[in-house]
């Protein structure tokens, strides 16, 4: 059963900068489109982490970024293995495209920063990004996913990303 697009948390839409895309709703995505969004979101965070490794000289930021790469890669591997088992291909959609477009701009913006300014921006973005994606996954994706195995993987992923949210909150305090 699909929930109404009116139920999409407004904070999520704002945080993910989706206002222009709200003519279409995340609540209308099918399982394969949701899988594509998750895979895209994972890869975006991996990309931010690589940027952090390239720009930051803060060892704490490096440790955090390496954890993001390690964990998101592990989740992606499980997701790909499940899709292979289900003989299914993730489907690109408006939300994946919006996330990708927003990420391009953010990477451009962050690339211009250096030192503590970069570290603060990276940590703050990690917190906001995980918070927004977690809310989307918990309140919109998980209730709407129809395949039991896909739903189970999303529930597992959510626990990981909630841990990342807490970790990011620690990082924000450390680089204040």
């Amino acid at each position, binding site marked *: 059963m699909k929930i109404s697009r009116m139920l999409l948390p407004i904070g999520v839409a704002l945080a993910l900068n989706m206002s222009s895309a709200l003519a279409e709703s995340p609540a209308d995505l099918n399982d394969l489109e949701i899988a594509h969004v998750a895979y895209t979101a994972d890869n975006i965070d991996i990309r931010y982490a690589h940027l952090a490794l390239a720009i930051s000289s803060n060892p704490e930021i490096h440790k955090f970024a*390496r954890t993001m790469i390690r*964990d998101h890669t*592990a989740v992606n591997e*499980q997701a790909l293995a499940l899709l292979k088992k289900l003989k299914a291909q993730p489907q690109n959609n408006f939300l994946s495209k919006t996330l990708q477009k927003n990420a391009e701009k953010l990477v451009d913006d962050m690339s211009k920063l250096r030192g503590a300014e970069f570290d603060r921006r990276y940590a703050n973005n990690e917190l906001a990004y995980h918070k927004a994606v977690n809310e989307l996954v918990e309140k919109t994706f998980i209730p709407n996913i129809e395949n039991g195995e896909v739903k189970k993987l999303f529930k597992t*992923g959510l626990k*990981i990303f909630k841990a990342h949210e807490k*970790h990011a909150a620690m990082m924000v305090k450390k680089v204040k």
Partner: protein
Amino acid sequence: MAAFSAMAGGLVFRNASYAKGKKPRHHRIAIRDFVFEPALVRVSPGDTVTWTNFDIAPHTATANDESWYTGLLGQNEARELIVTDNTTPEYFCRFHPMMKGKLEQAK
């Protein structure tokens, strides 16, 4: 340095001095949903502690003073530690520092 035994190959060191009159015990700690279960284990020298990671995300158990370290534990991987008199009790996950545990020794 605490003694370590890798479940999936590697060197095994068992040079801990056993507590007098006590039979060594085996403690099993599960890593699940970013938590060490149980987080507090009461141990004695000579006991074995095994950590098994059931999460998708890799974890470690690492002494707070870094004097012992399980190495990276992927999903369903396990490592053993043989407790010695001077095994540092407090530990954490090197990748997720909010995960904490303790091997408490009776005084």
